[in-house]
């Protein structure tokens, strides 16, 4: 066990996987010599050599396209898109190729690749360094979609993603890289070094894909959250005193619907929180699944607390970000209804 930031945990997952399996190769823009703009791959090139960890030309389609070819050959590429906002040039390769290869070839060829990308806002990154594109991947059959919220999960889920036989979109909330963040941007930054979830087991322990974690047991309302929003929800609980049960979904596809349904059936109320734009966000799917499965258990309309349907603004970052104030209000409203 060692106390780590999320960056260190991610780096360690790479290290463990590369040491265990020669087929694991790691690459992306600035990923090799420099170790990534967020340093998640620092030291890997030195340790494993330039053919297993290297810098690439700035071409996201090429990064994913070559990874698909490598996976078809038999390697296990773990690639980085520098920011999730820059994944769109690779969207065709992901949607039309990686996601469908197994199905269309009847498993003659498969695509075990992991596409990592820093996600989400809260760092004044404006519209091109803040996006949360998860719903654009959950709609695509054949992809798995993961978003860890802490160092422990980041390591375990990344190891599971690398082991997975299918393509995994691995979204890393960059605002959590160095410490948990509850949306109170005006308060001092906390570090993972003192957080229980910063305690990362050594070795190759996986956190299985498809399993949510209950971060807080509660009776009043179920909160469905992932990534940064888990801490925002925790702050809202503290501030409102509402006894919420907080689920950290961790994997969006496949989803731990069982855990969700069990909780909502218990509480009868549900608030869904994500940072992405609201319309057609993943919250819509969650809300639909809950209404389909728990209709007769719901005592009040579910509420979505999300980023607004605008580009992620620079100066108005904290008005855009669904902070604890907005989540707290949703708690109150859902309890009143």
């Amino acid at each position, binding site marked *: 066990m060692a106390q780590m930031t999320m960056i260190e945990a991610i780096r360690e997952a790479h290290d463990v996987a590369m040491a265990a399996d020669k087929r694991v*190769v790691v690459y992306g823009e600035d990923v090799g010599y420099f170790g990534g703009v967020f340093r998640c791959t620092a030291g890997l090139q030195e340790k494993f050599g330039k*053919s*297993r960890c290297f810098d*690439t*030309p700035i*071409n996201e*389609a*090429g990064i994913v*396209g*070559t*990874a*698909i*070819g*490598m996976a*078809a*050959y*038999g*390697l296990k590429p773990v690639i980085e898109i520098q920011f999730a906002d820059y994944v769109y040039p690779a969207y*065709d*390769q992901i949607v*039309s*190729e990686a996601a*469908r*290869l*197994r*199905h*269309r*070839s*009847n*498993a*003659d*060829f*498969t695509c075990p690749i992991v596409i990592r990308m820093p996600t989400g806002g809260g760092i004044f990154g404006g519209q091109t360094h803040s996006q949360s594109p998860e719903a654009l991947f959950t709609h695509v*059959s*054949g992809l*798995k979609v993961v978003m860890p919220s802490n160092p422990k999960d980041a390591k375990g889920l990344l190891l599971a993603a690398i082991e997975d*036989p*299918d393509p995994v979109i691995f979204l890393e909330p960059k605002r959590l890289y160095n410490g948990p963040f509850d949306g109170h941007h005006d308060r001092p930054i906390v570090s993972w070094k003192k957080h229980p979830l910063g305690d990362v087991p050594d070795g190759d322990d996986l956190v299985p894909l*498809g399993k949510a974690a209950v971060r807080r047991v509660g009776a009043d309302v179920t909160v469905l959250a992932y990534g940064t929003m888990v801490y925002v929800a925790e702050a809202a609980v503290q501030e409102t005193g509402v006894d919420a049960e907080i689920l950290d979904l961790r994997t969006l*596809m*496949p*989803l731990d*619907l*069982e855990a969700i349904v069990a909780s909502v059936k218990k509480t009868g109320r549900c608030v869904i929180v994500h940072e992405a734009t609201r319309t057609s966000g993943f919250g819509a799917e969650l809300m639909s699944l809950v209404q389909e499965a728990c209709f007769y258990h719901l005592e009040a309309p579910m509420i979505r607390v999300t980023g607004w349907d605008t580009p992620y603004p620079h100066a108005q970052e904290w008005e855009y970000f669904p902070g604890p104030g907005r989540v707290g209000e949703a708690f109150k409203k859902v309890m009143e209804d």
Partner: protein
Amino acid sequence: MTSDIRPLSLNVPEPGCRPGDTPDFSDFEIPRAGLVPRPAVNVDPDEIRDMAFSIVRVLNKKGEAVGEWADSLTNDELRVGLRHMMTLRTFDIRMMNAQRQGKTSFYMQHLGEEAVSCAFSRAMQPGDMNFPTYRQAGLLIARDYPMLTMMNQIYSNAEDPLHGRQLPIMYSSKEHGFFSISGNLGTQFVQAVGWAMASAISGDTKIAAGWIGDGSTAESDFHAAMVFASTYKAPVVLNIVNNQWAISTFQGIARGGVGTFAARGHGFGIASIRVDGNDYLAVHAVAKWACERARLGFGPTLIEHVTYRAGGHSTSDDPSAYRSKSEAAAWPLGDPLERLKQHLITIGEWSEERHKQAEAEIHDEVVSLQKTAEAVGTLAVGKTPSPRDMFEGVYETMPPHLVKQRQEAGF
């Protein structure tokens, strides 16, 4: 200088010939066979810039094989090659017909381009991998992939190896070095580079070949492929099949009316060669050269196969709406099958009689296989793939939501 400037106007390239016009290929420069020398496989790409503007040709008008690129194949191999092309053509004719009869939804033929994939296939080694488009079934035929399996897929019957999931003709066979065809243009070109990089990363000796059409070179993935191939000196052969047309659009729209497609390799320091795509011997020789270059670690080669799409784009297409009906006949590089046949006859290794006999044999073989396939089923008739199969293989392990959907669907 502003005052006397004339208004700008948009340049929209036009083909030389549209329906009603008389085809005229007199502008199309065809170097004589044997002219282009064969450089060493480790040549510096800069030293062979000219090869992107010339055309490697082996068979001359008299049907002789001439020049430094001749002799890459024995006479037995040439006869095998002829048989492959004849088989592909017969296969195409039967399947075009089957589509017209409603036995499949869709088909795409190779008419006039058979040499490209048939000859290339024979220059590769077992274990090498092609990343083909929909117009390289010759790669399979020439590697003895069972035609019956191809038909089963075309008919989407219960024996379709892809279980009805994929379109007809979008084959996949790892065993035969044939990557699953996508249907999206260009995507596979850069995947080929990735596969080749993986071979290099693994210290392997296998190489990859990418395939793309003239029209599809315009896709951005072409660039991704060139950039990655160039940077990592990937052991890959990148093939452009310039069959002059992209559905209704002539190659000048993708090419910008200047230079050649092969010349696009120069900016990347990639060895670039144009070859007569209707000359089985030339295609094979150039393919062999490029494969060797890749395998020996000298990096990628870009090959432009100059050929002509003599048929429609697909069974959904009627080319008489956008090009002259006589254009195919006027195409100056002739018919690949006819040219190889004449060569073999010229050198006394073949005859009209043997050809007729081979034709009959191939016809019988294809028809008999067709019957076998049709006995299983054709599109939505007879034994068809299970609907259950559509839920399988989305992931290795079916996740709960798909299990539920499958149950909801009742399968």
